[in-house]
């Protein structure tokens, strides 16, 4: 393993690629993670730090390096370069009992009964089978699958099987839950249920990291995000800070189409139908308003909208990555 020993403490947590830890210990610290496959860099210097109890999203289009990053964080593969620590441990397998992982490619033994599948996943994390079965029954009943306790996995619908696998990820009561594209393949109702489940985990102090190519999930759930594109992480930090990285957007609707007032608009202004969109000038709204009034623009409506995570993503990762993200998101929805 080509991981060098570096002192991470107090570095990432206070640096650019961090969300405020507020005194919380870090569940995950990673710095300079690099992984190449067949000479191609799949991940190129990823820095991430996640405080305990946070919901953290890894946001990027397909093929950006999300899964490889998660696999390195979990110790499924080792980085070529860089350092990763999970709850302070260099080797995540050493604290396997504290981690729950739902891979992107969902997998269960088709001939296993639901209760056995969940208990087996718990056993992999050190939970005795007997206790695992007991908890599996409780979990299945709590999540509306009490009728399926003794059903084989092959007899379940896809959504039910995904729920069973998620319960298997949680049965040993991990302190860190890592979910790779957890929303893919779920309908809107189950996506909503999963969001609630993730929030409930965080309320219980569990750290949740998930990867997604759907911005809304990250925006709704996450305290922090890492934006990843082309194997690099151009931004990792709080969602709020990401949104603050680009100025608020002004949306203006006027009666007049031409006039001297146009000279008061910034050069980045775009027209979209009847509306004009442009970033809020650094000088503020007052001088702009004055110019529009004096220039007889005939203001019909004017709103100032704080930038969303999507705008932040476009600004940080670039138009091409944003287009790919959008395409992936639409592809998944279809």
């Amino acid at each position, binding site marked *: 393993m080509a991981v060098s020993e570096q002192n991470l403490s107090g570095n990432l947590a206070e640096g650019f690629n961090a969300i405020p830890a507020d005194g919380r210990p870090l569940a995950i610290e990673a710095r300079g993670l690099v992984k190449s496959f067949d000479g191609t860099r799949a991940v190129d210097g990823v820095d991430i730090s996640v405080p305990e109890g946070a919901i953290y999203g890894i946001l990027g289009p397909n093929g950006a390096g999300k899964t490889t990053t998660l696999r390195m964080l979990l*110790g499924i593969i080792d980085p070529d370069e860089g350092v990763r620590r999970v709850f302070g441990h260099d080797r995540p397998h050493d604290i396997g009992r504290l981690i729950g992982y739902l891979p992107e490619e*969902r997998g269960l033994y088709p001939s296993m009964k639901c209760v056995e599948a969940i208990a087996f996943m718990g056993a992999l994390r050190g939970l005795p089978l007997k206790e695992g079965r007991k908890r599996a029954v409780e979990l299945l009943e709590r999540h509306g699958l009490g009728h399926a306790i003794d059903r084989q996995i092959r007899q379940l619908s896809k959504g039910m099987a995904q729920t069973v696998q998620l319960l298997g990820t949680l049965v040993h009561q991990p302190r860190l839950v890592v979910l790779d594209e957890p929303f893919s393949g779920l309908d809107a109702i189950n996506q909503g249920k999963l969001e609630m489940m993730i929030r409930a985990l965080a309320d219980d102090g569990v750290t949740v990291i998930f990867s997604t190519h759907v911005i809304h999930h990250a925006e709704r759930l996450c305290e922090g995000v890492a934006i990843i594109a082309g194997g690099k992480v151009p931004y990792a930090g709080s969602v709020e800070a990401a949104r603050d990285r680009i100025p608020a957007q002004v949306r203006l609707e006027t009666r007049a189409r031409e006039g001297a007032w146009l000279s008061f608009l910034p050069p980045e202004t775009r027209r979209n139908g009847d509306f004009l969109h442009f970033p809020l000038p650094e000088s503020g709204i007052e001088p702009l308003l004055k110019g529009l009034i004096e220039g007889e623009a005939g203001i019909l409506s004017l709103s100032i909208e704080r930038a969303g995570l999507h705008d932040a993503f476009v600004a940080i990762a670039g138009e091409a990555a944003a287009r790919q993200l959008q395409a992936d998101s639409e592809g998944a929805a279809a």
Partner: protein
Amino acid sequence: MTQQTPRSRLSAFEAAWVIARRDFVAVLFSRAFLFFLLGPLFPVIVGGLAGSIGGEVQREAVSFEVGLAMSPDDNAAMVAAGEGLAPQLGQALPLLRPVPEAAGDPAFDARAFMEARRGNYAVIVTGTLQSPTLVGTEPQIARWQGPVGLVAGHALAAEPTAFPSVAGEPVAISAASERTTRIQTAQIAQMLLFLLTMLLAGMVLSNLVEEKGNKIIEILAAAIPMDAVFMGKLFAMLAVSFVGIAVWGLAAFGLWSAGGDAITQVTGFDPANLPAPAVGWPLFIALGIVYFAMAYLLLGALFLTIGSMASSVREVQTLSMPVTMLQLMVFFLAAYTIKQPGSALEMAAIAFPLSSPFAMLARAAMEPELWTHALALAWQAFAVLVLVKGGSLLFRKRVMKSGGAGRDKRRKGLKAA
């Protein structure tokens, strides 16, 4: 620097045990395993039935026919005595027929006649009524000595009070050296070991392909070290193999108990006649079990690596062919070195992990020393560990390359292109 969280991980043994327990139960209680168990029994049962029928035919038509090459008067007396006893003794007596080729030929050589495989007699009786001699193979002589003596006694007197002793003149060559005879045991043991290993190690091949098909492999890889996954799977499959061997062994024992004589008649092979191995039968069987385990683990570790890297059964078949060929070659190497004890070639066969169990089992048949086995077993166990470690490393390096979505994306891209 690293924090110590008490019991925050499974030990390698515990992790392997979780995998082994699941795999063992899943395989053992699957319908496919039942068919797998029955598979080799079909030819055995069919062979047994055929042997039984053939045995009956032999009993009636051939095997019970004993040729008479005595003087014409003695021949006639023997036939008459046989007919006189037949109502009482039935099939316990052989069908006595004068050998036509011997009639009127005082120089008739029964031994040459039998060795030339002429006629169809179990044995040929030569000599006189007072001193008959049986010419045939040892088992046949042993079988017919008593009945022929009884018939000869009755041929001498209607109510005999004494029976002539019947001499034997074995045709089969059994005077070879002890070493030479033990080669037979060594060869049969090697062949059995090879067949069982090849037959059963194939199960390991498809095991990880199934895991990858179920997409569960990543869950396993995330939870426990990959070498523990490999170890668990190997030992589960080994345990399943022992179940298979036990079932087949019991079936074979049952068949043998029911029709062992007939099988011996048809095949001419009697395990009871196998020369005792140099280390003695109990130890030889124990070593056979241990060497089977080692051969299985070694080949299984290779197959597991292949299975983990293949994504379809077709890929498995393609990738496993070279390993199968390699295994065949090392078997031939080990078989070839039986007759060259102590040679550099035998040492090479012992040193090369894949051929080592075969070469050492043959050695157990031929040589009485035991320390060499302890050494060889330690070496083979070390080789298993190295192969498992190497396989798991290869798996982590070569297999866990990308997320499914990334792969899908690339596939779509390729298709579009």
